[in-house]
């Protein structure tokens, strides 16, 4: 069997330290390898080392063979000529990699015209022929993935899942036999995830070798093939998907798979109606549109004290907008939001998808929390007790928000709203950027503390499993 990718003894290091240790991977043509690991485990460095575009102070050693081309890993430039033709990289959030000023068909045709079939000389006839041929190739490629309706559209007019397929076609148009795919399901709901899996399976059937880098265990499961688990720059476990997923040997892999939302223990659901009649907010016939697009209409719901309600719906259905309307940040076009009387101005709080964006970047976390304590004349003792319960080290307080990990910062954000004893917390995809282990820990803390202080939670998540396991009930948007 021919190897699409074969790497031996690959190390990545900077002057001071070794970041990726002694990696050996083989990917035969037509098979996939899923590289699982948390952020900071060195997955992306490994991909950059294979492509040969490590950031300047980093170096690598070992050997890399892409198709028939063998090279010493440290000669990174030698692999640049293989880009597109032999090896392709589908970046994270590929819709950002598309040119917003070009139609889908032209972007794909461009690769066909300029990379895969370069004109023999610059004579106009040849160039024109190449362009014409490229267009028909692009059209048939789009047709192959069911994208013919999107051909004349611009990237902002198509959905995230379609954009991903378009980016895949553009990357693949030059005929690379090996593809590295970075976090293909980041931020996608399960329907979109199935689309991506379908796309990758089509690629496998064509005999392309795939290296998928992800922390999404569900993707690894549905893709099959082989799985490698990476921790602190080392591959701690490698084997076939069934074998690893069913009988993980390494302690870290076990924790990683247990943290997959599908494997969470179910929480005790509460009966919400008569037992706890205290209504926090009443949503009546709310409707909202952005420009021509009607997000939702006639949404009505009642949220009671201390319940955890998840808002579900496909991407673009206005889940975040509904939450912001409940918070009073956006005015609905129709209908009304009725807060229960006697609630203070700060009774409704929000937790953000990207905790880094929700803190003032230039001041320490301690300062941010201290400001809240001083403003509302609270006791710092309450904060330190809460931080201890959220398992946050006091030493982290003196760092800037950019100097702590996403999971830690999200817990600080949780602490910041909890000290105000809110009545309702709107959590907008609070863990979609965190790896599974951190995600589970953070969400459990959120649920536990909210229940403890009798606070209602409105949770937006694209992951049905999380909603199913965590929420008392579901509020569905069509």
């Amino acid at each position, binding site marked *: 069997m021919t190897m699409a990718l074969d790497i031996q003894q690959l190390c990545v*290091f*900077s002057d*001071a*330290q*070794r*970041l990726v*240790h002694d990696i050996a991977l083989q990917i035969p043509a037509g098979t996939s390898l899923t590289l699982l690991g948390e952020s*900071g485990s*060195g997955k992306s460095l490994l991909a950059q080392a294979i492509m040969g575009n490590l950031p300047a*102070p980093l170096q690598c050693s070992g050997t890399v063979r892409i198709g028939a081309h063998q090279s010493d890993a440290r000669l990174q430039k030698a692999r640049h000529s293989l880009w597109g033709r032999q090896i392709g990289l589908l970046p994270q959030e590929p819709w950002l990699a598309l040119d917003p000023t070009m139609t889908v068909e032209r972007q794909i045709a461009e690769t066909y015209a300029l990379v895969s079939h370069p004109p023999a000389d610059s004579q106009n006839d040849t160039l024109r022929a190449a362009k014409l041929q490229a267009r028909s190739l692009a059209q048939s490629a789009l047709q192959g993935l069911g994208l013919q309706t999107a051909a004349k559209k611009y990237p902002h007019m198509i959905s995230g899942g379609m954009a991903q397929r378009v980016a895949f076609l553009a990357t693949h148009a030059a005929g690379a036999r090996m593809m590295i795919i970075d976090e293909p399901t980041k931020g996608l709901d399960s329907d979109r995830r199935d689309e991506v899996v379908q796309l990758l399976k089509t690629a496998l059937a064509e005999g392309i070798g795939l290296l998928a880098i992800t922390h999404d265990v569900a993707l690894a499961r549905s893709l099959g093939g082989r799985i490698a688990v990476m921790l*602190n*720059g080392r591959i701690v476990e490698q084997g076939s998907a069934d074998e690893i997923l069913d009988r993980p040997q390494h302690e870290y892999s076990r924790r990683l798979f247990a943290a997959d939302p599908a494997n969470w223990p179910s929480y005790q659901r509460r009966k919400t109606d008569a037992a706890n009649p205290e209504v926090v907010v009443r949503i009546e016939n709310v409707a909202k549109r952005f420009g021509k697009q009607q997000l939702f209409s006639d949404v009505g719901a009642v949220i009671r004290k201390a319940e955890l309600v998840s808002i579900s719906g496909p991407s673009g259905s206005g889940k975040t907008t509904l939450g912001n309307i409940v*918070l009073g*940040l956006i005015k609905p076009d129709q209908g009304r939001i009725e807060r229960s009387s006697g609630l203070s*101005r*700060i009774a*409704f*709080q*929000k937790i*953000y998808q*990207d905790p880094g*964006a*929700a*803190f*003032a*970047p*230039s*001041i320490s976390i301690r300062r941010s929390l201290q*400001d*809240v304590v001083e*403003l*509302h004349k609270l006791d710092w003792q309450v904060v330190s007790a809460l931080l201890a319960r959220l398992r946050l080290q006091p030493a982290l307080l003196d760092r800037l928000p950019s100097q702590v990990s996403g999971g830690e910062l999200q817990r600080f*954000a949780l602490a*910041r*709203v909890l000290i*105000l004893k809110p009545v309702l917390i709107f959590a907008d995809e609070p863990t979609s950027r965190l790896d599974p282990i951190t995600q589970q820990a953070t969400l459990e803390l959120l649920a536990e503390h909210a229940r403890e202080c009798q606070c209602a939670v409105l949770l937006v998540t694209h992951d049905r499993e999380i909603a199913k396991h965590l929420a008392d009930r579901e509020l569905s948007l069509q």
Partner: protein
Amino acid sequence: MTAYTDSSAPLPSSGRRFSLVSRRGAGIVLLTLIAVFAIFGPWLIAIDPARQELSRFLESPSWAQPLGMDQLGRSMLARLAHATRLSLSMAVLGVLSAAIPGTLIGVAAAWRGGWIERVLTALADAVLALPGLLLVLLLAAFAPGQFWPLYVGISLALWVEYFRVVRAASHILLASPQVEASRLLGFNTIYLLRRHLLPVLLPRIFTLMRFGFAGAVLAMSALGFVGVGLQPPTPELGVMMIELLPYYSEAPWLIGAPVLVLFMTLLGLVLLAREEEAA
């Protein structure tokens, strides 16, 4: 290669930090020297900058007169000290009186939005459409030969860029999650300004001020040249450059002196900049 350590975060490289410190240090030293020269120079040198000794015109530098004498036999060092004091203080005044209102109006426009913003933006566009020189000439027509139209005109022409930069940046900041979170937490306007807006805006305003400073000095000299601004024999950097330009081949050090003072001031200001905005 050294042993593996647990943290994968790149270590801050000490070499870079050192050069940054010395860079800013050099800027501070340079500006302090110029400030000392401007503030104490005229008093220490104690020579009347207008006293002429026509027999000593274009005299070469000597121990008594380190910068020599100018075309009318006036002490170049004394004139340079007075000129530095006058030009730099006028430039500081002009830049501050453009930056402070420009910034405040910019934040206000982004904050309030609606018709207030439209009116202010239209006003700024109107000022932008009018050449700065024309504005000063118009004002100077009201009060010929006086100092204030010069200063008011320069400020009026300069505030627009602060307004535009601040308004654009504030728009983005005010819509950001960090400001939204602080509002939900109950913080007031002053806090949002102090913690969220100013830390981002100040470095940009400072960059504009550095270049605006140079622009103000050159604008004043240009106005002197067309006969509206300060007139000889007032010792002012721009006026001196114009006066001494005809003698550049006989006495290049004369024209070189005011140019060097201006250059050093700007160099000091550029060196003060933080590393990330230096590019």
